[in-house]
């Protein structure tokens, strides 16, 4: 069952229209899975979370969370969904502990359950010592953790996070990641996270959506997105000083030799080539493009496609990226 679904979801702010903040977004997140929608500022991330949490209503299209329509069944939705938005704050005149107990009470948890859950979350997020502090006294990173604790206080089935990864210090990033992984694996929480911090989500989310100016350029797992965007793997070799790498390799500033690969299958042949040529090979590895590089590849590919469409008429089917058997399909938006 899909926990989160968006179908041609579009949002235009204001009566005058203008450029849509979100345009024709389609996505599905199966229950228990995690998805990250990434993109820079003004790419529609916050709008997407606001639509899914019922704070906004779509201009057209639909969305559903756990089978509920967020705009019309907000109260039922929020009993099963936790949402973190950068603009949703905690009460400055209550301590962190009292904030959590208050929101637990609002979410109808019993007092004992609220205390147990709040203690668990504060300890997991390393905020136990700060529990009597006002949210105003917390650092930015601590506040982000506190907001996450508030969103998870009622053991939601779905967690919607906005920009949680942006600007997190190392401790916060580590603790947040650990807790999100725990929530996913132990509590079965479905996660949809919108962030511009692509490095933060790359390793623990199972699928990704690439947002650009309100449009979902593509979605899928990392490998399918890489293939769809045409982001190449790279072979990286560390050779003895003075040794020359095989043809096609370029020496990097750090002394490593790198070359783009069409597929991983090329790697054993390259290693063989170096060794059989008498070179001293200290290290050889395949470097996978990061999510950010894949995102950039999609942007470049989109620009090229746009230029081609405007320059010369071509069959659109030819422009769509090829699918690789055995990988989750990366779905270009609008298909």
């Amino acid at each position, binding site marked *: 069952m899909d926990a989160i679904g968006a179908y041609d979801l579009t*949002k235009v*702010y204001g009566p005058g229209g203008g450029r849509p*903040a979100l345009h024709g977004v389609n996505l599905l997140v199966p229950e228990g899975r995690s998805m990250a929608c990434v993109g820079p*500022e*003004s*790419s*529609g*991330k*916050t*709008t997407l979370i*606001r639509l899914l*949490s*019922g*704070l*906004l*209503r779509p201009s057209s299209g639909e969305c559903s969370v756990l089978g509920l329509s967020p705009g019309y069944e*907000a*109260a*039922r939705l*929020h*009993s099963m969904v936790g*949402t973190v*938005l950068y*603009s*949703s*704050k*905690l*009460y*400055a*005149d*209550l301590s962190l502990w009292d904030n959590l107990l*208050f*929101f637990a*009470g*609002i*979410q*109808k*948890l*019993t007092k*004992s*359950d609220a205390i147990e*859950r709040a203690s668990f979350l504060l300890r997991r997020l390393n905020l136990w010592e700060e529990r009597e502090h006002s949210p105003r006294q917390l650092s930015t990173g601590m506040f982000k953790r506190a907001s996450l604790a*508030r*969103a998870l206080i*009622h*053991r939601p089935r779905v967690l919607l996070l906005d920009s949680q990864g942006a600007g997190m210090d190392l401790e916060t990033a580590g603790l947040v990641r650990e807790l999100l992984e725990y929530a996913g694996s132990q509590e079965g929480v479905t996660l949809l996270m919108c962030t511009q911090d692509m490095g933060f989500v790359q390793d623990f989310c199972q699928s990704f959506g690439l947002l650009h100016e309100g449009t979902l350029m593509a979605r899928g797992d990392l490998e399918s997105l890489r293939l769809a965007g045409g982001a190449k793997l790279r072979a990286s070799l560390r050779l003895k000083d003075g040794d020359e790498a095989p043809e096609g390799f370029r020496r990097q500033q750090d002394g490593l030799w790198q070359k783009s690969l069409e597929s991983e299958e090329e790697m054993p042949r390259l290693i063989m080539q170096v060794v059989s040529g008498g070179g001293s090979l200290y290290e050889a590895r395949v470097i996978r493009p990061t999510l950010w590089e894949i995102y950039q590849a999609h942007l470049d590919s989109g620009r090229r496609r746009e230029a081609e469409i405007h320059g010369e008429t071509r069959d659109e089917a030819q422009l769509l990226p090829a699918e690789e058997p055995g990988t989750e399909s990366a779905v270009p938006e609008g298909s």
Partner: protein
Amino acid sequence: MPSQREAEPGQGTKLLSSAELQLVKKDMKSIWTRSSRRALLVLLPVMLVVVIPAVYFVLILLMPEAPGARPPEALTALLPEYVSGLGYKQGWLVIFTDLLCPMLFLCVPILTGAASASYAFVMERESGTLETLLLTSMGPKSVFNAKTTSCTVLSVLISGAGFLAFALTVTVADVFAEVRLFFTLDWLILLVLEMPTLSLFSVVFVALTVTRVHSTVESLQTMGYLILPVAAIYLMQLTGIFRLNIIALILISAALAVLDVVFFNAASRGFTPEKLLERDGVGEE
């Protein structure tokens, strides 16, 4: 592990759900415990129903009295018959108590209602906690009901306490001036009908404007719009043309009650996340 949620037996018959009740308590505590807010909510009523009447009474008692001087007949004619038989100082004391003090007293529910609603609605929107509340299972309507309740209850309680302080002040003045005690049926209507309906009216009026104002300060300024009509009606009595009698007071209370219902429904309908948050420029991303 599933959450242990509180069962709510007979929730349908309850005026407020447990979540609403918690928000009411939190809001009242939050408004009252901040010294700056408490100062506004206490000092203004004290000024209006204790200090101003006390100063006025002292001035009346101290002012020189010419032999045979009488208060204006046009005003005494509006008051009960016994007033025309009173002396100059006593007459002015009754005129002030019966014709002007109701206006001062009614400013209390307006000020406290509007101020507490500004804190509960506008300040919470500004500080981002209203959005957090809208992300809970309460739902916008419940949040609105709870906030309206907390502000109205707080306003009625402060106004009630203000009336006790006022009654004490006036009674002391009445005893000194040797006139009949001030409390009449008019005051009873003011206290049990007009004051609560005016409290609720001020709260829902501010709630109605919550999506239109930019800041708490701007919201607090709405108190001026609410006080003006009340002041105008009561000050017009000094022309000697008319007096707000019991029937007029009951009709005003009834009209306020009708307006309360209309404004409450309008404000409740407008209390949607989209309208509340659009002013903050949300969703720019």
